[in-house]
């Protein structure tokens, strides 16, 4: 029973990681950028949800505004900060992303203060839960897990079945070739950012309900963990990001459950390293052999 409830807890945590990891993975897949600002977009999403809910908006409107806000923010960031560096060395782009991350955190601190604010999760999702045998499962857990699964399915369909998805895959394979084939590379990249951010918006909602405290640096750790999850599963792969998210979430909970709570981060990274030693591109990552 204890085990089952820990399992559900791990799944819920993993679902949030997965939602964030998907965004990381997509952006990485297309322009090979570790988008350090991704976690901070979730922070902004959390604040948007907080304010819209506090102002008495309907939960659905709040959710829609959150997702829309994250998407717009990501597009703005992409256009202003990343596009000028499209042909710059990749590390410069990375540093720019870090700069954006610091900027967002400090803007949030300036406008919302450094003190944490509680998030009215009960206004967004129903409280309570259902009993599965002797285990009580909260509605929020079920909704979080289902949302992440549905997101993944929709995303997979988007990438595999639509024209835009085909364009995204083409751009991630070879930007120049895609451009020659008449694909508007810029708009495809922007679209990818937007989709990643929309997922981050959904992640922000799920996160805020589960961890109802908003503060300017809340996205940093979440972003880092999600990044690890994305790499774990094989960065650039959609099912990989999901798998990575679940794996990291479960791992954290299980390490705690066996009484090693002080070593959680250490064990998570150790497992990550071991996985990468055996599978150098993550669990679901394609192995890339350099052409000679």
């Amino acid at each position, binding site marked *: 029973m204890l085990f089952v409830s820990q399992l559900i807890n791990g799944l819920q945590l993993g679902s949030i990681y997965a939602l964030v990891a998907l965004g990381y993975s997509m952006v990485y897949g297309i322009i090979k950028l*570790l988008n350090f600002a991704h976690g901070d977009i979730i922070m902004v999403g959390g604040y948007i949800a907080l304010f819209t809910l506090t102002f008495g908006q309907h939960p659905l409107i709040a959710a829609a505004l959150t997702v829309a806000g994250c998407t717009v923010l990501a597009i703005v960031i992409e256009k202003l900060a990343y596009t000028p*560096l499209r042909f710059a060395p990749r590390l*410069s782009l990375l540093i720019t992303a870090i700069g954006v991350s610091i900027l967002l955190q400090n803007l949030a601190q300036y406008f919302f203060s450094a003190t944490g604010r509680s998030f009215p999760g009960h206004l967004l999702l129903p409280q309570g839960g259902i009993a599965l045998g002797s285990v009580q499962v909260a509605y929020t857990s079920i909704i979080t897990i289902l949302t992440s699964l549905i997101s993944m399915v929709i995303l997979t369909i988007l990438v595999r079945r639509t024209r835009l998805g085909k364009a995204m895959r083409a751009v991630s394979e070879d930007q120049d070739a895609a451009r020659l084939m008449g694909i508007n590379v810029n708009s495809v990249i922007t679209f990818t950012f937007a989709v990643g951010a929309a997922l981050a918006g959904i992640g922000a909602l799920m996160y805020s309900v589960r961890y109802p405290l908003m503060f300017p640096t809340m996205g940093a750790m979440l972003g*880092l963990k999600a990044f690890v999850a994305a*790499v774990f599963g094989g960065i650039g792969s959609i099912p990989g990001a999901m798998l990575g998210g679940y794996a990291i979430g479960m791992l954290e909970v299980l390490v705690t459950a066996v009484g090693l709570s002080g070593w959680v981060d250490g064990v998570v*990274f150790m497992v*990550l390293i071991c996985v990468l030693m055996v599978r*150098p591109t993550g669990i679901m990552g394609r192995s890339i052999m350099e052409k000679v």
Partner: protein
Amino acid sequence: MKAFTIPTPVRYGINTALLILFLIAGNAITQSGLLGRAQNAIIIQVGFFIILAVSLNLVTGYLGQLPLGHAGFMAVGAYAGALFWRAHILPETLSIVVGLLLAGVVAALFGILIGVPALRLRGDYLAIITLGFGEIIRVVLTNLDSITYGARGLLNIPRHSSFLVVYICVIISCAVIHTLMKSRHGRAILSIRENEIAAESCGVKTTYYKVMAFAVSAFFAGIAGALFAGNLGILVPANFDFMTSINILMIVVLGGLGSMFGSVVAAAVLTFLPFVLQPLADYRMIIYSLMLIIVMIFKPSGLMGSYDFSLSRILEKVIGKALSLGRDKGGKNHGKA
């Protein structure tokens, strides 16, 4: 017309003399009270950030890998040096030297330990794995509180990081990395960055050189860590988190990958900038991050690009110009400054 060149021994002599002069002058200035005490304190910190940046530049700029765990090596060195110094088993001057060497060696051992498995991976996976090792080091330091005192803080570390000690280390680390890079070993490291497969086809033992670069880099990061400890007098594992690694990387990229001079300049700029911006109070970090983004957008290859400052090259130019002017006096000017 053949360009004027200063003969090598003379060049080394000039450089050595200038560096000694710099040390003496710097020491005199910091002790004289000409600068504020805050400026002196920052100058010391610039020192160990230079070492950190220059050592990371060896791996990032020259070897072309992206490690995100530099703070981990710094941490190992910091704790090794601090614990040694706290034991007070040697007379002071000797203790400083041995402590610094110990810090470097222990960090280098970790560099090898981590480098061997990590360097099997490429690109961003290497970044992640080094990030992971950096975090593991931090977690271990936190949990080994019987030795490190964990988050309670390792207190009463002798404050050995004077201007002279720090800047002698700065000069040694810059000089070692410079001479290393201007040798067959340095060329091998560069060739790996440029094209690993071709480097192997030229008989360059890529794994050996990667691990070697990693170890040398970790060695100096360890020394910088010890200087850091000797500056603060207190160590907590949180000093060496992921953001510290990122800050060092920021210095390297902002300075220009593969430019030692750039690393030095950026270390100074990025250490002084938050201080200079203090009057902005609550806007400070907003401005700081905006400046970072703007510099990257307008100068993506860093402040210095891959330019490396060489005093003797400038001297050669100046002297060469003067000579050619003298020679061409009255005649046509062929000098092509």
